[in-house]
């Protein structure tokens, strides 16, 4: 009886282990693809951004005075 119990627990453990391994494979594929996109390449390059980034000019009325 004890052996049957141990065998059952062992089997359940193996099933759980296999299932978790499968689940990990299922969520991993595409996400990393974006890492090498041009967005990341540019936005992590200080040099490139200094060349390309332009401040959008915010027009503020010269008549505005006082604190907000």
């Amino acid at each position, binding site marked *: 009886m004890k052996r049957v119990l141990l065998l059952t627990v062992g089997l359940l453990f193996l099933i759980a282990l296999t299932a978790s391994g499968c689940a990990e494979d299922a969520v991993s594929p595409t*996400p*990393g*693809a*974006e*890492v090498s*996109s*041009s*967005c*990341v*390449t*540019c*936005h*992590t390059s*200080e040099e*490139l*951004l*200094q060349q*390309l*980034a*332009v*401040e959008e000019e*915010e*027009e*503020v*009325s*010269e*008549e*505005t*005075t*006082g*604190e*907000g």
Partner: protein
Amino acid sequence: MPPVEAWEKVFADDAEFAQDVHGEVGCVICHGGDSSVEELSEEGMQAAHEGLVADPSDGNCNTCHSDIAENNECSLHTTLSGFTSALEARGGNLEEGSPLAEAFENHCQECHTTCGQCHVSRPDEAGGGLVSGHEFEETPKMKDNCVACHGSRVGDEFLGENEGVLMDIHRKKGMQCTSCHGEELHGSAEIAEDRYHTVTTISCDDAGCHEDVWINTEDNPQHEQHLTDLACQVCHSVDYKNCYSCHVSIDEEGLASRTSEPSVMDFKIGLNPIRSAERYYKYVLLRHVPTCADGFEYYGENLLPDFDAESTWKYATPHNIQLDTPQNASCDSCHGNAELFLTEDDLRPEEIDANQDVVVPQIPNPEY
């Protein structure tokens, strides 16, 4: 806040952000644009940014954070109901197409904020720009986020930026805005009238802070005498900023313009205009808010027809708390000291009617 260069605003100092739970979904899912463009040039940048949404908070954050986003729909940061309820209380008509609604859209709506403007970037109103690369900060940063908008009054008080006034004792001990403010920043399921009427509004004895004040009153005769009739700030706050006479218009170039008088440092104790079971004190501090009866006259005449229905000196909780203050030095420091109290003599003639309910009719007896 010191200016931030254009490139710094969009610079993520390493690619780690692309590996976290938000980065895993890819840039274009939230921001749009075209991530397949490979040319690293101005033309390439323009092509990649075609259809870009710089702040994609709306319609994205709620996909995963639905519980917070649902409450946030009703938060003061989203609805600006603190502004609208004050205008409506003065008889203002904010129905779509009305002159006041147009003014509100042109001058007040900019104070609205989004999830991203607290948790990823600085608020648009403060010039925007990523705070810590593209990291999502669960807790907004005090100077980059909170004070970027709440700077001129509460921020200056808390940080001790008003000349001659010490920083708040809580700040001196290292506390941040979020040490006290938390849940109420996202609102609750109901639209609140203003920040003093939210379901989750905090108080000094919340979360285990200052509960002892209520327990050991015999060690402190001032607490024993005044705990139930004075708001904490009446004894523990010092001079704070008051604003007057804000007028809005559109200038000759079509830009939204605003003028107000220079702010005034002052300290006024008055009658509690929002006395309730939670805010039971008779006396509170009052701050003059920048409103005035003709502030919107550019958009039409008499747009606040019941201006006097609401006081211009409003319930205030200045964030410059000190243990020892001039008014709590002794009984005589406050009792009989007319300078500390808001009386009719302090009011502008055109605001006398509006403030009848908050002026102190008789200065507390000097002989107590």
